[in-house]
């Protein structure tokens, strides 16, 4: 409460709009800045302001209540309104914090991976992408969601393609992502069109109220629901719609991979939650059928299939990318339970996984930065060559497996509890099996790093060459955070519980 009272009241009341406008406008200015260092400093300042603002908003929702920001002073449902509530504030803070950590990490990393001429536009695209993601999460207007979805997606395609100076395959990956992402966005907007046809409004709360009055509406809203789920499913890499993800993660610059892995799919998952539980309602028969049978089934398949695929990859980044698909499966399983505990566990895993995966990808980026390593076979001796980076990677890896006293353990334990409470013992078994598969693919990397000796070049052992401090700080911050969550998860669990309460409570 003390921290909150030190905030200027203007920052809290207008925080929702400032979080989007600031990166958007500064992103535009950054695109014409002549020097990369200047662009980096500007990006750092903007992300720092965003973190401070989002923390203020988070505290305000926690201590006071949800707020509604009217764009241009127009009342909803006619005007566009931004919503700040228990469901989106943790995610807003997560996105801002990840953006800040990525920016710190980016100074050495971007300098190594992106052509000099493209570095200032790179930061511009990054800022606009941040604005788009925050917009998706904050807005309470369904069509505005689509606009911000496109803003964030288009800048992400550009960011992925910027990896071309390191790895030409980034161009193909970006093109793949562009085609599939556009199909996803199209499906989403077709769904919105049907919803508009049924209800005559675009305000999410208003659509929700009208649909509840209509008791689910006619077949039009059923079709709308299908299109929206498939469209968002593409964006969040739900199992058979995940084909864009491994390529995009493996060939993008490390900076972008970290940011994508920890925020982009999470924002799409948040939208899925908001649409299923607040725009539509699980009390409609078609919604609960899809949630219980389709999302749960796809989630379980993703957990097993993603983990299995991860085991057979030779490239470390592809391994973690397939692992991300598996982790999305865990979250979908939580959503599929459609109970308070299940949703809280899914949301908790969303937050924890963002922390864990970001730490892991940060470490992979550092391996490439020092030794140009991407293949698991080349991990030999990394434990001696880069002890600190490998240490952070190990903590992240253990957390991903779900070893006790790590963040991954906390969220998996919650998921298992929720599954047992729902009476789904088989789901608990799937979670355990998927975790065992995670031991194999993480273990393979750790074994190579610690139990094999460093390679020799011309008869000499490759020298120790630790990553620069700017890379180690964000990496270790996240690695230690994942341990801290594992030891005492009260804060995060409470945030997830708050989000689940908003979802189950319904309405805005």
């Amino acid at each position, binding site marked *: 409460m003390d921290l909150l009272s030190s905030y200027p009241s203007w920052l809290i009341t*207008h925080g929702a*709009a400032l979080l989007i*406008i600031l990166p*958007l*406008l500064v992103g*535009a*200015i950054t*695109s*014409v800045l002549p020097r990369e260092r200047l662009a980096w400093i500007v990006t750092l300042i903007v992300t720092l302001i965003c973190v401070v603002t989002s923390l203020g908003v988070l505290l305000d929702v926690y201590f006071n209540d949800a707020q509604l*920001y*009217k*764009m*241009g*002073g127009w009342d909803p449902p006619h005007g566009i309104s931004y919503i700040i509530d228990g469901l989106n504030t943790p995610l807003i803070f997560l996105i801002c914090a990840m953006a800040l950590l990525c920016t710190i990490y980016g100074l050495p990393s971007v300098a190594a991976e992106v052509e000099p001429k493209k570095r200032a536009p790179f930061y511009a695209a990054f800022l606009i992408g941040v604005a788009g993601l925050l917009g998706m999460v904050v807005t309470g207007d369904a069509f505005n969601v689509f606009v911000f979805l496109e803003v964030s997606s288009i800048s992400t395609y550009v960011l992925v393609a910027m990896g071309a100076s390191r790895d030409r395959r980034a161009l193909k990956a970006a093109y793949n992502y562009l085609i599939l992402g556009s199909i996803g966005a199209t499906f989403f907007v077709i769904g919105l069109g049907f919803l508009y046809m049924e209800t005559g409004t675009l305000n999410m709360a208003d659509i929700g109220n009208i649909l509840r009055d209509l008791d689910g509406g006619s077949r039009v809203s059923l079709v709308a629901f299908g299109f929206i789920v498939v469209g968002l499913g593409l964006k969040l890499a739900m199992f058979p719609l995940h084909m864009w993800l491994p390529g995009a993660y493996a060939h993008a610059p490390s900076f972008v991979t970290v940011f994508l892995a920890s925020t982009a799919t999470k924002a799409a998952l948040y939208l899925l939650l908001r649409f299923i539980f607040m725009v539509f309602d699980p009390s409609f028969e078609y919604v609960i059928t899809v949630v219980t049978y389709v999302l749960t089934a796809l989630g379980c398949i993703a957990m097993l299939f993603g983990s299995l695929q991860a085991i057979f990859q030779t490239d470390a980044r592809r391994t973690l990318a397939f692992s991300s698909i598996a982790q999305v499966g865990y979250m979908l399983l939580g959503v599929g339970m459609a109970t308070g505990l299940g949703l809280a566990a899914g949301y908790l895993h969303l937050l924890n996984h963002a922390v864990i995966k970001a730490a892991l990808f940060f470490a992979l980026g550092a391996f490439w930065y020092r030794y140009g390593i991407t293949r698991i076979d080349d991990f030999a001796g990394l434990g001696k060559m880069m002890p600190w980076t490998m240490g952070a990677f190990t903590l992240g890896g253990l957390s991903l497996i779900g070893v006790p006293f790590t963040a991954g353990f906390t969220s998996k334990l919650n998921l298992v509890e929720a599954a047992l409470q729902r009476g789904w013992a088989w789901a608990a078994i799937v979670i355990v099996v998927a975790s065992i598969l995670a031991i194999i693919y993480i273990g393979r990397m750790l074994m190579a790093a610690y139990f094999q000796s460093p390679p020799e070049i011309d008869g000499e052992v490759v020298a120790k060459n630790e990553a620069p401090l700017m890379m180690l700080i964000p990496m270790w911050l996240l690695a230690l955070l994942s341990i801290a969550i594992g030891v005492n998860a009260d804060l995060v669990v409470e945030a997830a519980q708050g989000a689940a309460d908003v979802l189950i409570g319904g309405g805005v």
Partner: protein
Amino acid sequence: MTPHVILRVVSKFLIPLIAIFAFYVQFHGDFGPGGGFQAGVILAASVILYALIFGLDAAKKALPPSWVRIGMMLGVIVYGGTGVATWLVGGNFLEYGAFTPEHPDHGIHLGILAVEVGVLLAVASVMVAIFYAFGSRQPDLTDEDW
């Protein structure tokens, strides 16, 4: 003797008129159909016509790509800056009525005018930028390589 004399003379005569018509459409947006989007496209069309008749290099000399980039940026800044200005006078973002609290309608009029200028700049620059981007593409194979 340069080719296409008629085209050159006529377009030299037409290009300023097209540009003026763009501004007519821009400000006529107050009273009838028109506004920043249409005006921006018309303004960009005058540049594109110049490039088609006199060549891309001449057009790039007249309107350098770096200016086009700055134009895109300025367009966004003018639009967003209007919203920031409404913050400074104590309203919500883009709440133009806050400019003149006694007569909100006047403020709304002013605000829309400013925003439309931003739209004009952004649309015109983006159209020209797209044309430059496609026009400057080098073919993968030259004719000799075939």
